């Protein structure tokens, strides 16, 4: 296989994974090769070959999100898109940018910033994210209350099916209803349906003021949640409202953005602190809540073996979070009901059940591959919805070579 790959892409574009590189250990096994095609054509040629020979592969940007979601199985090749990093279209006056999949999101941010614009997504991988990876993973980050989901920011894509067929979906304008909106299922599909080669993102103006305040109270979860609820009901319309910590000691952060006068007026309406508790709102030097959002990931250890990703109607959060065992570490966006928690493995079934009964969901996002294998068995029950997802996968990837284990 290696010699065939080298023949196809040139020896420079094919490597065996270096120890310590993000792709050296894929869910407990080592892939045989990491390939770095330089163009869409090379990527298509590789896919055609892989389909023909049944080589299982996983597309990746820079490899930093590979350990997320359902565990991969039997992948032979990592298709790294990190050499495809051109900006292919840039129209700041139209608030639009198109980039090849491997372009670091940070570069989009820098380019946009020069024009007073921003990419209004703050993915949990931060600066390591790539244009393609951000869309494929579909994780928007904690400013979701204001900015919406990743799917709301992707205007169009170019992508390759596993048989090498090139297709485009959507376009480069903000409104477009021509044909099926293939962008939606592709965003968040984690490389299971197609390989994204180019993504067009909407940009937004930088707000005149964007500030974050933190209340590190050490209060128990119920108190934190009740203050959070009060903040939501006050109609402060925060850009983000996060709570994090452990069930016995939590903190709260609020991000307000907009016109200066408006931000400060809303800031002044924040209740001083929790009744009968020390602590007050401290302004953060940096904007946003990203460091707190990744706390559950940092807390993964033997006692908190798995990382759960959940979404609940905000009114059902309290009931769900009250089931978190004492050693859990969580982050939750109180405005949208989304969050993550590092928990002991045995607590998953009860949390999953609670989420489902509140019409939300709770899936295993991180942890050892065996635990992430659980997800397929528990969180995706048999049913017509699942059959449809599988049928879509089969229609687009008939050879079944893309990201095996994640949707099968």
């Amino acid at each position: 296989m290696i010699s065939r790959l080298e023949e196809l892409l040139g020896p420079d574009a094919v490597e065996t994974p270096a120890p310590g590189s993000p792709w050296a250990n894929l869910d407990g096994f080592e892939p045989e090769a990491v390939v770095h095609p330089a163009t869409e054509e090379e990527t298509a040629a590789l896919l055609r070959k892989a389909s023909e020979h049944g080589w299982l592969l996983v597309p990746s940007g820079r490899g930093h999100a590979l350990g997320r979601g359902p565990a991969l199985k039997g992948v032979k090749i990592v298709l790294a898109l990190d050499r495809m990093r051109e900006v292919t279209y840039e129209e700041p006056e139209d608030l639009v940018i198109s980039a090849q999949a491997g372009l670091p999101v940070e570069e989009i941010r820098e380019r946009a910033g020069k024009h007073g614009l921003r990419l209004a997504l703050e993915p949990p991988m931060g600066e390591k994210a790539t244009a393609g990876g951000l869309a494929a993973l579909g994780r928007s980050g904690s400013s979701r209350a204001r900015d919406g989901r990743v799917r709301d920011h992707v205007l169009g894509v170019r992508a390759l099916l596993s048989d090498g067929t090139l297709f485009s979906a959507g376009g480069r304008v903000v409104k477009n209803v021509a044909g099926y909106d293939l962008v939606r299922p592709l965003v968040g599909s984690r490389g299971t349906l197609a390989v994204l080669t180019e993504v067009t993102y909407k940009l937004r103006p930088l707000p005149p003021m964007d500030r974050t305040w933190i209340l590190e109270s050490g209060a128990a979860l119920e108190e934190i949640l009740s203050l959070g609820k009060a903040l939501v009901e006050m109609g402060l319309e925060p850009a983000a409202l996060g709570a994090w910590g452990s069930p016995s000691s939590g903190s709260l952060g609020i991000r307000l953005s907009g016109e200066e006068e408006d931000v400060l007026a809303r800031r002044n309406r924040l209740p001083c602190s929790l009744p009968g508790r020390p602590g007050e709102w401290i302004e953060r030097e940096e904007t946003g809540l990203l460091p707190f959002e990744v706390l559950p990931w940092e807390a993964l250890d033997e006692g908190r073996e798995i990382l759960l990703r959940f979404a609940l109607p905000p009114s059902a959060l309290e009931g769900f979070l009250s089931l978190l065992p004492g050693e859990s570490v969580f982050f939750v966006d109180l405005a949208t009901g989304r969050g993550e928690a590092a928990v002991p493995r045995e607590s998953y079934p009860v949390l999953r059940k609670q989420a489902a009964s509140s019409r939300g969901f709770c899936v295993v996002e991180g942890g050892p591959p065996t635990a992430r294998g659980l997800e397929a068995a528990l969180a995706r029950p048999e049913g017509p919805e699942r059959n449809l997802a599988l049928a879509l996968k089969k229609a687009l990837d008939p050879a079944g070579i893309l990201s095996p284990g994640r949707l099968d």
Partner: protein
Amino acid sequence: MDALAEDLAALVNRESLLTEPDYLMTYECDSLSFFKQRPRAVVLPRTTEEVSRILAYLSRKGIPFTARGSGTGLSGGATPVEGGVVISLARMDRILEVHPRDRCALVQAGVVNTALSKALEPLGLHFAPDPASQPVCSLGGNVGENAGGPHCFKHGMTLNHTLGLTLVLPGGEVLHLGGPCGEPDLDLAGLVVASEGTLGIVTEIWVRLTPNPETFRTLLASFRSLEDCSRAVSRIVRAGIVPSAMEILDKKSIEIVEASVNKAGYPLEAGAVLLVELDGRPEEMERPLSAVEEACRKEGALEVEFAKDPEHRMKLWKGRKGVYGTAGRLAPDVYVMDGVVPRNRLAEALHRIQEVTDSRGLVCPNIAHAGDGNVHPTICYDGRDPEQAQKAEEAGREILRICLELGGTITGEHGVGLEKLSLMPEMFPPGSLRVMRRVKAVFDPAGLANPGKLIPLEEP
């Protein structure tokens, strides 16, 4: 009653079935009258279960079907298929659940757009997409087309407000895609939005609700020319201002509105007017409002008028909203176009559109959701005159090609339907159409769900 009617009558209440030719005539087309086809029957179910039973039956018999909301579509999406049955969702008009704290609601597909917002009024919430037909159009239709409207520049289209839906597949199987929290991985509900009833029938929708803005500030700026007006739009976008709506009306639109009951006080001497609205908290209005005014003045605005009170605001909007209706008085037929161009190419696009219609001697008021680059030239013609009808169709095609050439799309919110089928191969590479056909076959292997709409059935 023929066998089909008897069978259908056994599946639903007899009064939920229409087979009399007089009644069927109403269902021959949607609001695009270019295409007409009388259905074999019309069924008006009240529940998802009834829809499921009907589709299971039609699937056994191999009979194609077309879902219909209120019939206000503008691309022939709800035009029946030859030998097919129309499933009207008009009687599925119940709001099933409202969750104000979670800002979502579950509605049946036949609920009328403004009926939902009216019901939510006491809660201070509304459904944000506001297509021109909103007093009549259904939410199911909004989902089918991914409807937008003037305020989607800031608030987004129907897709952005759809959290989940109940879809009945052509075989009758009922699927719940997404829900109040969306979906954990594949966004299949998002794929169904804008699919124009070609993947199955959407019977229930989880919609996102938006808090009513505390205040509105509305201004009307008049310009010598469409070009100046379009440049003002680019300048506003460039200045980082996000109004909730930015609407352009050209000279012809101003003239016809001012001569009608929808008279809004637009200056007749202007070559174009720009209607801009900002919404939000009072503290966030002043700077953006002055920035909008400044942008208009820098592009040579003749006059800038601010809405003084809610009545004045309504009056300014009444003119804009009345353009389509008023255009109907200029000629027996109107052809409402829908294309999108990058916002910085808007001036060029509007100029070229005017040339296309002027050169054919067609009357064509031009309006645009300028903030989105979404143009709606409204071609007025007499369909009884084949020459005029042909000119209208040709002009329409040329206008959409201009949109494509400038880097835009052939439809921003009205859909492909029957109208734009032949332009799909110009918009997408062959690979994209192949992928779309594969997607269609996953949902509808027998090809019974509104066949021949949205994507050309065969390879060109």
